[in-house]
């Protein structure tokens, strides 16, 4: 087995036993990227030199017996909307093509402090707006499972980098499904943590009340470990919560006896592909046979989730993206005077989808429309949150498909609304602020991965991880209940 095919956890063990050096690992991934990425396009920026430098430093620390973090020397890829000091952070936008941040995002600081080399910055839909990574201003990322298909989005590059063995694990961000949907399309594990568990400081904002950074990995234990590294309070993010972070490794117990799994018919309605449906139900059955109890729950407000999500997300985005004007940083397109410069910069700097969402959000916040749109959406959001809290008094985990279909082809979803509907199952956890995890649960007739989504209540990542770990163990034993 090649080094790049190893999971992060395996690489960590090999490093700990001195079977390999960090430099060898990083070199293996760089070679892999150089060989494959011209086709796959998972990365926007490859930081080979910095990664090798960090790897050598880690190896030296190990050699000299200096203090090491557990993940010292294990490399990672990060989505290109996380601020990296002295390394350009484009957000997949022409607007920030040349933008080099002077500071590190809090999660980037944690990764660097842990001695982990960063392989590069991964491709994404422009400003995280999209579900296929086709909205990147720079490249289309291809699904490593089938290069004719999209990897999902907006963290398509981060999911593809892991699935295509160009990184052992990665960080993505999830506003309405942007970690879980590409994880599902690429056949890897992705987790959107509870809102407030991971610091957003340095994450370029799309929709501030929904955005959350999370891990993507080959295996549930990788995701648990990476979450451990990034979770916890950060004084720089006022919305980050002061809760004590549990030991997520401790929840990796393949025991679901007594676990109450909720199934909501609203997540299995029309539009859901039959193969996806049966794969998800099979996963539920597997868990049920392992001792979990399956309970019907009702989440009728799910029907309003997409509308609610697009009103709130675009409203926040319209304010968050107004700062890109060519004055202080990023793209500047000259004009006859300053005002012409602002106009040209925005006209050229933003792509179609970003412009569409800025206009939608501006409209939703406008005088005379605020009550009917933004305010109403916030009220529905509160109700959705309550509905989830109510459901979680009856069950521990709600299981749904991650997406209605498996990965689609490039250019297949031409109507923006059709594209928005691919987030139909993933947006509700963001609205409710609860954690959601997607993991593979089989493949369709075209061999494309199918993802199952698990949702738990606020700060119940341990329950999600335990359920996911149990299902993964069952899958690995080949105990598929056909």
């Amino acid at each position, binding site marked *: 087995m090649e080094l790049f095919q190893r999971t992060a956890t395996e690489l960590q063990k090999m490093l700990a036993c001195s079977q390999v050096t960090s430099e060898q690992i990083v070199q293996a991934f760089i070679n892999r990227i150089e060989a494959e990425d011209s086709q796959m396009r998972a990365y926007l920026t490859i930081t080979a030199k910095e990664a090798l430098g960090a790897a050598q430093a880690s190896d030296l620390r190990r050699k000299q017996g200096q203090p090491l973090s557990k993940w010292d020397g294990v490399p990672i890829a990060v989505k290109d*909307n*996380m*601020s990296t000091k002295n390394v350009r*952070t484009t*957000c997949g936008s022409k607007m*920030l093509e040349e*933008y080099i*941040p*002077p*500071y590190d*995002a809090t999660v980037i600081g944690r990764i660097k402090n842990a001695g982990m080399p960063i392989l590069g910055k991964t491709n994404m839909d422009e400003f995280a707006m999209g579900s296929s990574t086709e909205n990147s201003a720079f490249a289309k990322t291809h699904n490593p499972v089938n290069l004719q298909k999209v990897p999902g989005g907006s963290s398509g590059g981060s999911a593809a980098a892991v699935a295509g063995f160009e990184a052992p694990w990665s960080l993505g961000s999830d506003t309405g499904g942007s970690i879980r949907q590409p994880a599902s399309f690429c056949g890897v594990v992705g987790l959107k943590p509870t809102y407030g568990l991971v610091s*957003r*400081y*340095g*994450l*370029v*904002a799309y*929709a*501030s*009340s929904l955005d959350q950074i999370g891990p993507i990995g080959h295996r549930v234990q990788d995701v648990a470990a990476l979450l451990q590294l990034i979770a916890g309070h950060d*004084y*720089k*993010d*006022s*919305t980050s919560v002061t809760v004590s972070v549990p030991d997520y490794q401790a929840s990796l117990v393949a025991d679901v006896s007594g676990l109450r799994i909720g199934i909501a018919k609203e997540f299995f309605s029309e539009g859901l592909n039959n193969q996806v449906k049966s794969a998800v139900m099979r996963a539920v059955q597997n868990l049920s046979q392992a001792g979990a109890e399956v309970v019907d729950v009702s989440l009728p407000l799910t029907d309003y989730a997409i509308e609610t999500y697009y009103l709130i997300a675009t*409203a*926040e985005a*319209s*304010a968050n993206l*107004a*700062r890109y*004007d060519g*004055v*202080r*940083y990023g793209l500047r397109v000259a004009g006859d*005077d*300053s*005002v012409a410069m*602002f106009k040209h910069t925005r006209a050229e700097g933003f792509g179609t989808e970003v412009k569409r969402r800025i206009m939608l959000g*501006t409209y939703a*916040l*406008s*005088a005379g429309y*605020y009550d009917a749109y*933004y305010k109403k959406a916030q009220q529905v959001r509160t109700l959705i949150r309550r509905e989830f809290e109510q459901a979680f008094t009856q069950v521990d985990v709600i299981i749904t498909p991650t997406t209605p279909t498996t990965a689609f082809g490039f250019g297949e979803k031409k109507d923006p609304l059709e594209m928005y509907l691919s987030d139909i199952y993933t947006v509700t956890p963001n609205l409710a602020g609860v954690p959601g995890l997607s993991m593979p649960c089989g493949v369709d007739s075209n061999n494309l991965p199918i993802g199952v989504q698990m949702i738990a209540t606020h700060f119940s990542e341990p329950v999600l991880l335990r359920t996911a770990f149990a299902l993964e163990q069952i899958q690995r034993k080949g105990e598929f209940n056909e």
Partner: protein
Amino acid sequence: MSEYEVVIGLEIHAELLTKSKIFCGCTTEFGGEPNSHCCPICLGLPGALPVLNEKAVEYAIKAGLALNCQIPGYSKFDRKNYFYPDLPKAYQISQFDLPVCVQGRVDYELEEMQQSTGITRVHMEEEAGKSVHSGDNILGSDFSLMDYNRTGIPLIEIVTEPDLRSAAEAKAFLEQLKSILQYIKVSDCKMEEGSLRCDANVSLRLKGTKEFGTKVEIKNLNSFRAVERVLEYEIRRQRQVYEQGGSIVQETRTWDDSRMITVSMRSKEESHDYRYFPEPDLVPLEIDLNWVRSLKEGLPELPLAKKHRLMEQYDLSSMDADQLTTDQEMASYFERTVASYTNGKVVSNWLTGDFSRLLNTSGLEISKVKVTPQQLAELLRLIDEGIISGKQGKDVLTEMFCSGTAPEQIIKDKGFEQISDSKALEQISADIIAANPQIVQRYQDGEDRLLGFFVGQVMKETKGKANPGLVNALLREKLKATDS
């Protein structure tokens, strides 16, 4: 002509005196190289997030308490969206529907009449940056330069009820407000440096009607004098429009200093839609009411209360008490002086008289004056004891002001010491009387005013050092004695 009633409401912005900015750790110090007091947060760099400065909340609440406001236990921040390159995020973090202070009142006096103006709200927000255009404004300029050093300085916006009925009332209110904010040390309120700014809403209505007339917003009243002058102009303008049968358009106007008139900036239709919505990057503010109580208890005596106390305690006139209490530093100087010299009336006369004159001519702030209150008290005691005359005292004070030297030292150095030795004066007086027999005769024949001649002669002989009271008494006595 006077059938119209004037209705004025003010919106005042005051910069808070915190050491660091409202959402980041950058210094609030005035000046500095352009863009040297900045960081990713106040520059609004992608991904940076605000963290609320607790001191700014404390200052805002203190201001609210001093303005007799209610402090709700729950408050929140909102984004006020507007685009201008000096606003790096293209929205200002402000407070829309749940401000930190509500429903207050400011009491003040105008020509000895008690006045009270309602405070609708006090909310917190962040300051914008500064732009310099190569032309008149951003449109049509070849280039514009931006300085973000001021961006993110904490501000409070104070909104009054439409309670003010004249330009003079507006000015008196504003002076009281400034005084209060300075007393509680939350803002230095320097209009010339822009740390206090005022906008006004002005309308007229027929006396006796309840409905408000169409209001006009006047921007940038940037000095106390401007407030009165501009409001008077605008009132006159509106009255003229009504009297000529016209109607007022709802609009925003600004003062044109060169033409001394207000000019239209934008109509209501062109007014901004700020698209306020709750700031998702900050959590709502839950205010501990026990903390508020302790802040309230910690407030100092406020200007109006101090004024009335000083009037009562030292038998001062309203005007003098005003002059002593408007500036907190002056009030404190007064109180520290009377701690060593108990005749408050005398202290007041000196402070409102010569001392204030010296302050004005030197342009010094009272905190920079070299004369200590103890030294001033000492000077007044020396005058009381007759060591120097009151007139000499003025010269000594001037010298004290310049050098900071103790009064006794100045008196010694300059030979200001008054001759109060009656033996010495008796001899001099006797000599002068002896040398001027005809004048003595005329005096004794009833020309009383000739006493002044003898006093003058003694003063001349003593180079002005003789104690005038003593000389007067002595001469009267002696001239009588010659008679017998």
